[in-house]
């Protein structure tokens, strides 16, 4: 049977319901041969659910899926694979201690006379497949010796060994360097040339516009639109995603900086930092950029005292801080929003109010006992101000979405009246709608006169938010740019210099 209309994959009115929740609502989607189609949408919009149905992990409740014109039933992941649909999840499904070749041919080892594995053929075929995606590797290398980027390529190679016709990639670039991203894009373009259809799920709109042919937007379980990339722009896509228009992603209202508040001199740590020195002024937003392993998080933690330092000094308004003492830093007016807000920032079982007021308890205490009403009132102020969406102040924070959780953390620091705030990847894993609100809050922090230090790996955010940019590489500061003179190229150039 032939594919109809040149579509390799068609999803018709597919629905999926979970207890009390309509995850997908009569979704219609089509994928052409040799097309790269982006799937975008906020967290919980339904893209992951669709992917899992196509992978055979979930079973659809209604509608049908057509593969090359034929309706198919997907009961398990091996069904999908054998039919020719390969999904590359964020958590790669490779066996670390086996070799590349063994993983590529995992479900279908070539056999000699039906008994023993034909290593020669296997390695040979693997070599061919790897080269076709532009990867030059020894097929017997064990997986755990490869980088994440190389492992992803192996997964793609696996797809090819099964003669996949559809490859679905789920947020593939979150752990990749810019170079590795380019290699991935190359590999995907090669898949395109082979006539394979690619569904590409991502948060990063710049990738959509660089790589993809069409972009499909999900919202609240429904498919909102499918547009040709050449005929649309970021704003339109964002509007579809969020359901309302977002005029600017990076509002900047603060201006002018005061005197130096945070001074870091020759700060070093045992493993990473090498004599880092810089300062941040009141009302200033300094963005720190670096590739994976450059030392941004180490810097944040060392300044705050969460990790020990081996040398140097940190001062807040000329008052030297005791290195390695988080408690002291907190009491001296320094706040830290960690990269991993669930692991290190929020107390998940505590309520919104309790999380917001945690560092400020003394303000609300009489003789050691908390004045609950005061606490509630002040927290309500912040919830209103930041539009934190929660059914009540007593709601446990673990049930809020990522964006609202982050707002709670920011509210916490704003309530505290800090001098310095360090934000490590404040918008990681947060969808576009919430991102803009977070940036607004960062702006507000600066407006209130705080010295703001923002660590980020997202270039648009860096360029949009910062008054001044510091670039790190190999534990050192390798570049410094004012807002006006900074460009993506200059920043990247500094980021790869002197890497170890």
């Amino acid at each position, binding site marked *: 049977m032939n594919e109809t209309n040149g579509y390799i994959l068609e999803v018709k009115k597919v629905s999926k319901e979970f207890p009390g929740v309509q995850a997908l609502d009569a979704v219609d989607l089509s994928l052409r041969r040799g097309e790269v189609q982006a799937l975008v949408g906020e967290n919980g919009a339904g893209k992951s659910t669709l992917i899992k149905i196509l992978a055979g992990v979930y079973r659809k409740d209604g509608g049908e899926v057509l593969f090359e014109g034929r309706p198919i039933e997907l009961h398990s992941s091996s069904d999908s694979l054998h039919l020719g649909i390969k999904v590359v999840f964020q958590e790669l499904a490779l066996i670390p201690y086996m070799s590349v070749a063994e993983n590529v041919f995992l479900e279908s080892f070539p056999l000699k006379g039906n008994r023993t594995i034909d290593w020669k053929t296997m390695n040979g075929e693997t070599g061919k497949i790897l080269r076709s995606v532009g990867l030059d590797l020894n097929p017997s290398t064990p997986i755990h010796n490869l980088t994440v980027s190389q492992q992803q390529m192996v997964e793609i190679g696996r797809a090819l060994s099964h003669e996949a016709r559809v490859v679905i990639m789920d947020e593939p670039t979150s752990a990749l360097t810019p170079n590795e991203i380019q290699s991935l894009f190359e590999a995907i373009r090669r898949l395109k040339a082979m006539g394979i259809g690619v569904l590409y799920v991502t948060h990063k709109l710049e990738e959509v516009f660089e790589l993809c042919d069409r972009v499909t937007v999900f919202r609240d379980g429904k498919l909102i639109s499918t547009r040709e990339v050449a005929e649309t722009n970021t704003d339109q896509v964002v509007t579809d995603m969020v359901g309302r228009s977002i005029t600017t992603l990076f509002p900047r209202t603060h201006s002018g900086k005061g005197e130096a508040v945070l001074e870091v001199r020759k700060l070093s740590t045992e493993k990473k930092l090498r004599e880092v020195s810089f300062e941040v002024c009141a009302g200033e937003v300094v963005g720190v950029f670096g590739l994976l392993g450059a030392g941004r998080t180490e810097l944040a933690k060392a300044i705050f005292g969460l990790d020990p330092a081996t040398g140097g000094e940190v001062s807040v308004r000329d008052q030297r801080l005791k290195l390695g003492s988080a408690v002291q830093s907190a009491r001296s007016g320094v*706040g830290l929003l960690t990269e991993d807000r669930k692991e290190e920032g929020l107390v*998940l079982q505590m309520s919104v109010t309790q999380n917001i007021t945690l560092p400020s308890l003394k303000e609300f205490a009489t003789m050691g006992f*908390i004045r609950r009403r005061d606490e509630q009132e002040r927290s309500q102020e912040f919830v209103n101000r930041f539009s934190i969406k929660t059914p009540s102040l007593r709601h446990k924070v673990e049930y809020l979405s990522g964006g609202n959780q982050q707002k709670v953390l920011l509210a916490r620091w704003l309530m505290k009246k800090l001098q310095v705030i360090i934000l490590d990847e404040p918008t990681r894993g947060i969808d576009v709608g919430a991102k803009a609100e977070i940036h607004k809050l960062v702006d507000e922090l600066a407006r209130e006169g705080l010295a703001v230090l923002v660590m980020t790996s997202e270039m648009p955010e860096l360029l949009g938010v910062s008054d001044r940019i510091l670039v790190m590489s190999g534990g050192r500061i390798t570049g410094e740019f004012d807002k006006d003179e900074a460009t993506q190229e200059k920043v990247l150039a500094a980021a790869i210099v002197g890497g170890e």
Partner: protein
Amino acid sequence: MEATAKPKQSLFGRLILFNEIMLVGVLLIISVLISIGTPRFYSTTNILNILRDSSMAVIAGIGMTMLLITGEVDLSIGSLVAFVGVVTMDITNKTGSVLLGVLAGLGLGAATGLINGLVRTKLKVNSLIGTIAMMMILRGSVYLYKIEAVQNYHGLNAFFQIGNGYVGFMPIPLLIMIVLYVIFLFVINRSVLGRSLYATGGNYTAAKISGINVDGLKILTFVMNSILAAVAGVILVSRMNSGQPNAGQGFELSVIAGVILGGTSLGGGEGTLIGTLIGILILRVINNGIILLRWNQDLQIVISGIVIILAVYIDNRRKIARSKIITT
């Protein structure tokens, strides 16, 4: 997270959301069932017995709840109870003063708690292992101190009153328990200290970043826990009328079982005193009921075990029910 819509919930789901209500319900159901089998159950004597008998476990349970909230545990309280009893009786014998004897016992508790706390925070030894070691050290040491039980040579009435006396109709151990319970109820729910306990157990790093002296707090909690266990030990030695080196065996497990039945999590960050009180009462009522009903005494452990498993299962369902209330 897949859901953005408001989810539906079953009635059962909503009811069990309120853990304490469910526990009280269980307690009532069990009590009614036992009463049908034997009217002696709800006699004043029996109720007071149950309460007085539970007082030691509840007092120790207050400390254990606080400790579990911070994410730690203490398995040495059984051995501590024995040692405190021996020391208290011995010192009272030797000095003729009940006050000195009791202070000696409480002092031993404080010292033990301090060591447990330091081992955890400075030596960074996991509290499960650390307190098991302390349990063995205490149990061995009490025999080195006194190989035979210490009899009551002083005959002081004040000593007798602690465990056996009454104020009006209320047994003194019950009175002690109520006073301590109310004090700590306030502290845990309303004070900065209480909030800090939950924060430290819920997320150690977050608490640290917020300026809470997390290590100091843990040490303080270990000390409070051991002092409270020592109070239970003083009550016990008064009731037994001798300091027994072999007392308290299994005490730590029955306290922890009651605390967990009451909804406190072994992982830290959660727990209430009300839950602990009812959890301990439920287990005590089961044991009492089995004797009153003249059932085989071996059933005590079996039924308690079943109740604990059911309770933890329901607790898990409750967590799932709650997780359906996700908002964007």
